[in-house]
């Protein structure tokens, strides 16, 4: 049990670490839309091919993308199983809107009569 928890912890750490970087988040989003080669990804960012390859390796380690070889290309795809579930996304959307609605409530409380325009 403790060993299992620790393993889960370490995997979660890898996911958090992987997503803490803006370029890596962008790679995840792009590769969810469709497969991209590492070289195609590398052209999108102001960094070397090796640096992009390293980012992809971090994401792969975290299970956020999968990689396959096709000829001389390495193709990267967002791991749908890990990060795409429509109902979960709707839960996230609900949380986003609940946050917005809370803030709307604060504005109405601060300024009940609103702007006279």
């Amino acid at each position, binding site marked *: 049990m403790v060993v*299992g*928890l620790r*393993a*889960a912890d370490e*995997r*979660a750490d890898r*996911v*958090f670490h992987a*997503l803490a970087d*803006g370029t890596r*988040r962008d790679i995840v*989003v792009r590769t*969810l*839309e469709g497969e991209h080669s590492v070289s195609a990804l590398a052209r999108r960012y102001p960094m070397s091919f090796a640096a992009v390859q390293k980012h992809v390796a971090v994401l792969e380690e975290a*299970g956020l993308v999968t990689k396959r070889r096709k000829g001389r290309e390495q193709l990267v795809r967002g791991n749908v199983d*890990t*990060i*795409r579930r*429509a*109902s*979960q*996304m*709707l*839960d*996230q*959307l*609900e*949380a*986003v*809107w*609940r*946050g*917005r*609605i*809370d*803030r*709307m*409530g*604060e*504005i*109405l409380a601060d*300024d*009940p*009569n*609103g*702007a006279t*325009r």
Partner: protein
Amino acid sequence: MTVTNVHKDPDALTMTMTVELDASVERAWQLWADPRQLERWWGPPGYPATFVDHDFTPGARANYFMTSPEGEKFHGWWEVLAVDAPRRLEVMDGFSDDTGTPNHDMPAGRMVVTLDERDGKTVMEITSYFTSPEAMQQLIEMGQEEGMVLALGQIEAILAGSA
């Protein structure tokens, strides 16, 4: 301010949220129509929005950006599809590149807002429509920190469950 109902349809990729507000319809409309008020609630905490243009005329585009605590800017746009002040608003919501130019490679979502008076209060209904799960994923994750934080929590839960 009470969320009275949330209807989620994962197949149709829509979510409708019904909210009861202790304010008149005209007052509630200002939350959307007055850019200075809109800026106070659109972005997640720590990511204030700035609407550079804001014109509630059908066909008009509103451009905005959100600024992260580190000063990074996330640009987006709204296109007003239909407006019937102070009762109904329909907009497309999408992303822009770093120069504020709409990025049409990125998905856009449609949002319909209606405001109705009921017993001296306002019932606000917000419906979000998405064209694909990928579009929904991107719109939720890009620059919407609350969604991102939740995504991380959910990934963590999935990983914990499979360990």
